[in-house]
């Protein structure tokens, strides 16, 4: 059987398993077992994928399989992965795995919590393996809707407001997507029967008028999930109200669905319009990058700081994609992976710190490094990765992006790049400010002295995230070159149109 099907089967079986558990202990153990298996599958997939590549198996996508689903509509369940998708699957598995351990202490309606969390994960996995746009969209929506329950029930602060805002904005995005997808579907009739199949669609050159009409729908539709300015407003509220694991998964993986979709569907399939309209979106994403970073400076709530920082970093992903050359797009994918890991790490840490201090206001904290050294060090690592210190993943990604984007000879792209680069400095400002206030200085409360350092389950969660961040930082070549290979068809199609 195709290994990719396991990415749907294992989560579904886990959900069914959780249904039969009695209490929160059973639920979390089942979830942990299921997601460990999932992580194992992802590792095996990565190994065997690159073993096959090494053995000389070509073709853009491997592990292809195709089952007809709705015959008259020519809708298929079609799966296959290239190396980008493989890395994204690994990223998602790591983050979900870490997320389960980070939410080890959830007791209130724990079964429902883990079921919703894993349903969300199913949507994410399914999205990355799908090659048929219908199934892709199905999984996409599946990933969005459990968010409402997760934030609404287990969240904190103005959770009902945030949950509703997030859900409606993301569903609004998927509303735009439906229009775009149906446009692709019906215009594919120029080359045989109508189809949702990504591979077949990528061979068609669509008329320019059609591209102009549908590109904004697809790009904005996915872009909302990728926190495209000015439609990013769901993100700060949503992330700060969400429970730890959900923030991790959402900022770490779900927002990548947006960038991935923009690249794989909107830009890949409608390249002419992508060229024509890229300037509008470049301006918007440049604003995202800088605005997000400035937004983070003013915040006092740890989660808000991180949420704004995510807006900035995810904006950078879209920014790099829109630069449309191989280096910058490579950087975009690296940034997706790097940001996925480090933002998950951040949110996990914030959850753990909040669990101890019961506040997320940085003014009320200080000197925590001495009390909880493990968490403190992890926070510093995450911070340094985020501000782009060499040796950690953030540096690799941002370097590649700015290297690539500065290759454009014209003024517009260069100015945009220069403006966007300024975010690195601003990022340093807010990260160092937080580290200083949170970890260094005087302890604010006496009772803080009694905090226990990271428990075993918290350590698992953190280590699983830190290791790949350092690995990418020290040895990015393999990741970067495999991503480059997978970008070939996309870049070719984009440049062929010039």
């Amino acid at each position, binding site marked *: 059987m195709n290994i990719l099907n396991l990415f749907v089967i294992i989560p579904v079986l886990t959900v069914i398993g959780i249904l039969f558990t009695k209490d929160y202990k059973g639920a979390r153990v089942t979830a942990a077992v299921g997601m460990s298996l999932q992580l194992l599958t992802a590792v095996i997939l990565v190994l065997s994928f690159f073993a096959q590549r090494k053995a000389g198996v070509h073709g853009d996508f491997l592990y292809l399989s195709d089952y007809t689903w709705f015959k008259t509509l020519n809708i298929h369940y079609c799966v296959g992965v290239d190396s980008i998708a493989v890395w994204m699957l690994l990223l998602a598995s790591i983050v979900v795995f870490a997320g389960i351990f980070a939410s080890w202490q959830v007791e209130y309606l724990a079964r429902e919590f883990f079921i919703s969390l894993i349903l969300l994960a199913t949507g994410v996995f399914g999205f990355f393996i799908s090659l048929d746009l*219908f199934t892709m969209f199905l*999984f996409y929506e599946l990933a969005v809707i459990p968010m409402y329950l997760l934030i609404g029930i287990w969240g904190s602060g103005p959770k009902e407001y945030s949950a509703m805002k997030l859900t409606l904005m993301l569903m*609004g995005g998927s509303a735009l997507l*439906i229009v775009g997808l149906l446009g692709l579907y019906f215009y594919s009739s120029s080359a045989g029967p109508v189809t949702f199949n990504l591979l077949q669609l990528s061979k068609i050159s669509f008329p320019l008028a059609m591209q102009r009409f549908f590109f904004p729908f697809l790009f904005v539709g996915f872009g909302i999930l990728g926190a495209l300015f000015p439609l990013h407003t769901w993100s700060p509220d949503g992330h700060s109200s969400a429970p730890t694991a959900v923030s991790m998964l959402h900022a770490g993986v779900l927002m990548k669905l947006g960038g991935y979709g923009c690249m794989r569907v909107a830009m890949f399939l409608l390249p002419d319009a992508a060229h024509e309209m890229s300037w509008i979106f470049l301006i918007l994403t440049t604003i995202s990058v800088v605005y997000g970073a400035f937004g983070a400076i003013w915040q006092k709530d740890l989660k808000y700081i991180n949420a704004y920082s995510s807006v900035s970093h995810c904006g950078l992903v879209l920014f790099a994609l829109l630069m449309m050359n191989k280096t910058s797009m490579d950087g975009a994918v690296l940034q997706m992976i790097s940001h996925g890991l480090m933002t998950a790490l951040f949110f996990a840490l914030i959850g753990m710190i909040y669990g101890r201090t019961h506040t997320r206001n940085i003014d009320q904290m200080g000197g925590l490094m001495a009390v909880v050294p493990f968490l403190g060090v992890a926070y510093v690592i995450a911070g340094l990765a985020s501000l782009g210190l060499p040796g950690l993943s953030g540096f690799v990604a941002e370097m590649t992006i700015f290297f690539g984007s500065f290759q454009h000879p014209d003024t517009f792209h260069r100015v945009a790049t220069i403006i966007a680069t300024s975010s690195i400095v601003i990022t340093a400002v807010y990260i160092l400010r937080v580290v200083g206030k949170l970890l260094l200085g005087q302890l604010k409360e006496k009772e803080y002295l009694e905090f226990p350092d990271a428990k075993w389950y918290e350590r698992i969660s953190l280590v699983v995230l830190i290791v790949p961040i350092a690995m990418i930082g020290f040895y990015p070549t393999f990741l970067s070159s495999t991503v480059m290979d997978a970008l070939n068809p996309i870049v070719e199609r984009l440049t062929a149109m010039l």
Partner: protein
Amino acid sequence: MDIASFNLMRNELILVGIVLIMLIGEIFTKSENKNKLITLGTILFGVATLINFLPLQEGMLFGGSFQTTRMTMFMKSVLNLGVFIVFLQSNTWLKREDNHGKIGEFFILIISTLIGMNFMISSGDFLMMYIGLELATIPMAALAAYEKYSEKSAEAGIKLILTSALSSGILLYGLSFIYGTTGSIYFEDCVRNIGINPMQTFGFVFFVAGMAFKISLVPFHLWTADVYEGAPVNVTAYLSVVSKGAAAFTFMIILYRVFGSITKVWEPLLYTLAVATMTIGNLFALRQNNLKRFMAFSSIAQAGFILLGIMQGGTLGMTTVVYFMLIYVFTNLAAFGVISAISEFSGKENITDYNSLYKTNPRLSLILLLALFSLAGIPPVAGFFSKFFLFTAAGAKGYYILILIAVLNATISLYYYLRVVKAMLIDKSDEPIATFKTPWPMRISLLICVAGIFVIGFASVIYEYISSISFGIN
């Protein structure tokens, strides 16, 4: 005409048989045994539902007035399923003291209207269709006014009968123009003489208006909320699913078979109606607190989506509409089942009464959650598939702007469906509805609905079957 050709009217004849049995049963049962009539009626009807799934020869009767095709059989089966579920759900309610003397009536009235709907669907001429329509409407008013000591119920009855009379009048007026200009009431003959002709267009618009009353499209929807609110829950369920479905089926069949040549006239008309219906239905649903009114506006909005499919005018359009209705039967009845069970137990019908329902009645709230997600079109439940396919049908016509309006409306609708979800799962309540055990007929009905909600979407076989028996404008 021989005896065998009566077989073509199998479903109708069986239903008439059940009506007669119930009538006789009502007379000859002693007062203390009346409750057994409920079991009798439900079982008989269940058997009839099953029988209608058996394959049948296609053909026509009475010189083309009555037509049986595989499509009409399937549509009738969809309606039968809906009615069967409604019967299961009304079991406990019928056993109440004040319904004691009129159990038989309930079955007789519902099945009579169902017979009328069957005739509408199978009709081959306007007269048959009109007779069916009247048969489907007049007993409905009695049903709405079933709780005769409740003022609201009586009001619902009178509102229904008055608007129905008005709409029938409008419909007949339109039909008279069509008869006058084409010289025939038979669909086959009409088709040949239909063209762009001011008189016919005039008649056609009236015909559409008349049908729009039945499907409760905006701006002909004003009766809906009041009637839904006043009528007993189970009757409301019946009205919103079966009655609306039958009217939509008939409307679609006649548009395709008779007015296929003047798509230019009806497309802009339906376009406008669809936009108005979806938008206004949704906007009014936003602020409802009574769940029955809430479901009324939700069902108005859903009717707007159905128009997207009807407008396509081809096999695809018919398939998506029938598929949508099939899923809608299970989905909406699941929601109404829960509402009826709770209203039966506690008498509460407001959204705020549902606060913390998940704590006390987790299963019921899960079913309602699934049903609402399905209505909103969220995967993996069936509603996602049916809505997506309706959008596909509109896409086939190139109406991308209409799709945009529709999907944005679907997003708005998500807001109010989530309001109920929020009440059940998130909001705290000091006195939530107490834990209770649902009676077994209700459980069976909910089980059927949930199975339907999960299976029909994934089982592409069903879609393929509907597609194979659909027809479009030639």
